[in-house]
């Protein structure tokens, strides 16, 4: 497609050493990569693949512990490996610019937006103040930010994540660079915001004929914007080619594994979920309400309270998996915490297996608590680093008065069930990988023999291949133990794959509810429709499933 002409960026045999004592010798090794003007090249890979290191190496922005030991980076024909710092500085922001994963962290909290945009202009050009100001305003307007005049005097904390990333893009493009390097620029954003930012990047790229190097872990995003794709693993390139070819006809097993691990969104839409009709409810909530006090402003004034849950009803039928989807701030996590009795409700009733649950206290609560268990998002935060696996899983059993010896047997059996060697009981969490930890967390919940399992973004922090394994484990356990599952996620693809029914939440309310197949195939609510439209790689996933 872009075979002809000199590439804007040509990387050859790039090798970056890790500090001594790391788990491997090189962060990346033997990387070959071209990016031409007018094309978007995606580097895709899982944690530890070296994709970010590659991107950071281009402009010499690696942390001091990482050293480029070999290879060449030709940018607009100029060798950057070993180039003096002053020369690199001259190129950064002017000929090649970069945007980052966490826009909120990438902006200086104590300087105004206008100042931070102007800074890049002043760093490279000496222009009269009025001209700088004009360019700042024009730059902010170009990334479709409202009211650029007021925005210039504003500080970053007043902006939403999407607006902050727009500011970062305005900064990056202020001097019309030949190349944009984007390091997971949409990973921290909600799905609808992600879609907007991806569209913005594609638009600006097309208008200016820029070269874009785009790092992501999400094949859906790749499908949305990539012209060509480079798949990385363990610091090496596995395979590269046009997006079309890689996504539809991968040659390497690893690439195929990555693609297969992407949740089959379209599968669910064709095979409509079938909840057991009229089954008895495992859990039911009525009129659930939770207000969060507004943040205090000064001494006596508060912002108006925010309704995290606004009159929510839900019914989880025995044996089904009910998905709760929504963006950040929709109230889905508050719902999970209230059902789990981690956060008190302001109003409403919850019943578990037909018995009241939300009003129990003390010993009565302890007697019922095991019926509802939870798996948390962060596999690193959810296991106490100072406790052995046996204590982590056993605490709940001990509290219920199960004798130690019997508890040990049950822990061992449950560990085996979730695919962890029972000998692991004597070890500490840090000895396990993220996926293994999540299995331990699942074992902790299931050993209590709950009736309801609440999975709060339980696979969101995992790499896509691990995510697929954990999802399979959850589905298997649900069937084996006759569990009912409440599956909370921001990722509609995951929900589509595992849930029988879904609730769509927005601003503390349920905006749509129904069988998964129906909701995804024929959404009735406009917000649901927007969410589904924003799923990255929707066309590709749909086509792949159909093929």
């Amino acid at each position: 497609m872009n075979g002809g002409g000199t590439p804007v960026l040509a990387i050859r045999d790039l090798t970056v050493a890790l500090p001594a004592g790391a788990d491997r010798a090189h962060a990346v090794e033997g990387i070959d990569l071209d990016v031409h003007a007018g094309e978007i090249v995606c580097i895709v890979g899982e944690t530890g693949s070296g994709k970010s290191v590659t991107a950071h190496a281009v402009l010499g922005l690696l942390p001091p512990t990482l050293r480029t030991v070999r290879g060449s980076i030709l940018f607009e024909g100029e060798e950057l490996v070993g180039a003096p710092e002053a020369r690199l500085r001259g190129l950064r922001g002017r000929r090649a610019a970069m945007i980052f994963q966490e826009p909120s962290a990438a902006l200086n909290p104590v300087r105004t937006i206008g100042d931070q945009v102007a800074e890049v202009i002043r760093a490279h050009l000496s222009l009269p103040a009025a001209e700088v100001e004009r360019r700042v305003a024009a730059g902010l307007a170009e990334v479709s930010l409202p009211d650029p005049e007021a925005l210039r005097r504003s500080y970053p904390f007043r902006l939403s994540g999407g607006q902050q990333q727009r500011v970062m893009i305005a900064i990056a493009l202020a001097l019309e660079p030949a190349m944009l390097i984007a390091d997971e620029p949409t990973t921290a954003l909600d799905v609808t915001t992600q879609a907007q930012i991806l569209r913005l990047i594609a638009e600006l790229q097309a208008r200016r004929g820029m070269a874009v190097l785009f790092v992501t872990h999400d094949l859906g995003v790749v499908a949305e914007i990539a012209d060509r794709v480079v798949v990385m693993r363990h610091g090496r390139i596995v395979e590269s080619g046009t997006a079309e070819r890689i996504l539809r006809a991968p040659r390497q097993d690893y690439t195929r594994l990555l693609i297969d691990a992407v949740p089959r969104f379209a599968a669910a839409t064709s095979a409509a979920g079938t909840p057991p009709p009229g089954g008895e409810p495992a859990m039911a909530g009525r009129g659930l309400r939770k207000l969060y006090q507004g943040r205090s402003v000064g001494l006596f004034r508060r912002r108006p309270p925010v309704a995290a849950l606004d009159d929510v009803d839900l019914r989880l039928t025995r044996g089904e998996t009910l998905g709760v989807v929504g963006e950040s701030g929709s109230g889905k996590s508050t719902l999970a915490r209230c059902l789990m009795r981690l956060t008190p409700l302001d109003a409403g009733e919850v019943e578990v297996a037909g018995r009241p649950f939300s009003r129990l206290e003390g010993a009565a609560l302890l007697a019922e608590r095991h019926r509802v268990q939870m798996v948390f998002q962060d596999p690193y935060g959810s296991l106490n680093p100072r406790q052995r696996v046996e204590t982590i899983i056993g605490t709940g059993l001990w509290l219920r008065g199960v004798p130690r010896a019997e508890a040990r047997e049950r822990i061992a059996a449950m560990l085996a069930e979730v695919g962890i060697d029972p000998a692991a009981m004597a070890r500490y969490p840090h000895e396990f990988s993220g996926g293994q930890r999540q299995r331990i967390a699942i074992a902790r919940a299931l050993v209590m023999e709950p009736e309801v399992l609440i999975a709060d973004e339980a696979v969101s922090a995992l790499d896509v291949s691990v995510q697929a394994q954990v999802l399979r484990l959850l589905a298997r356990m649900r069937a084996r133990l006759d569990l009912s599952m409440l599956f909370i996620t921001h990722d509609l693809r995951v929900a589509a794959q595992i849930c029988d029914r879904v609730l769509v939440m927005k601003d503390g309310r349920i905006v749509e509810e129904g069988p998964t197949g129906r909701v995804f195939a024929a959404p009735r609510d406009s917000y649901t429709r927007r969410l589904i439209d924003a799923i990255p790689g929707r066309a590709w996933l749909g086509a792949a499933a159909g093929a």
Partner: protein
Amino acid sequence: MSTGFIRRLASHRGGAIGLAFLAVVVAVALFYPLYNPRSPWSIVGRPFQPPFTGRFMLGTDMLGRDVLAGLVHGARFSLLIGLLSTLVSLGIGVTVGAVAGYFRGWVDEVLMRITEFFQIIPGLVLIMLLVVVMGTSMWSVVIGIGVVTWPNVARIMRAEVLSLRTRAFVDAARGLGQRPLAILVRQILPNALSPVIVVASVMVASAILIESGLSFLGLGDPNVMTWGYMIGAARPYLREAWLLSAIPGVMIVLTVLAINMIGDSLTTALNPRHSRKGERA
């Protein structure tokens, strides 16, 4: 503490030097009285004997007391008072900080205002008042130092507990039915102790400094020979016999330095920020 931990600590150069120095001081302080059981207050010879000249290795002071004996007894009480007042301070600070951080709400509000009060007031002036009110004794000094130094512990403890209590493993324990106090003791405290240990080590050093200041002002226990007292007592003879002031001061500096070096090494030994994140890709 395991031997592995002590080895890790000693592998930092500063920590090793500090540990070695402190070990020598403690050993001498413990065993010297076996060799010379006489009270450091007893007059043993002619006053103002310079060091390294006569029977007394470090000479005698203005009243003819053995300077070395005073120094050794000073070491005993400086370290003892440092340790005891740190224990007092830890006792108050850990409890207040943990309770405030875990229960939040009005409990936190009340406890933090009290903490703020103790942090804000000029500590030495309060200790002076306490000593005047309770009488000059080792215990009023220990309590006084404990009472003015605990806010720091409480704040650190509270910050740790505040951040730990939002961690998912605490939610998980609540979901299993563990009670608040058990969660605080079993889930949170073991994770919050590293920074407190570091602070405690440095607090022993500050306590020694505060005690020396009090003794220098003549507000220490009148029956106990301390370094600060020695400096204060020799002060009028600064011109004639400056070593009498200088030597105990050097001991304070070296001891406090050693403890701080241990504290610094503890910081790195307890949270090895190994491989500074490296890559995230």
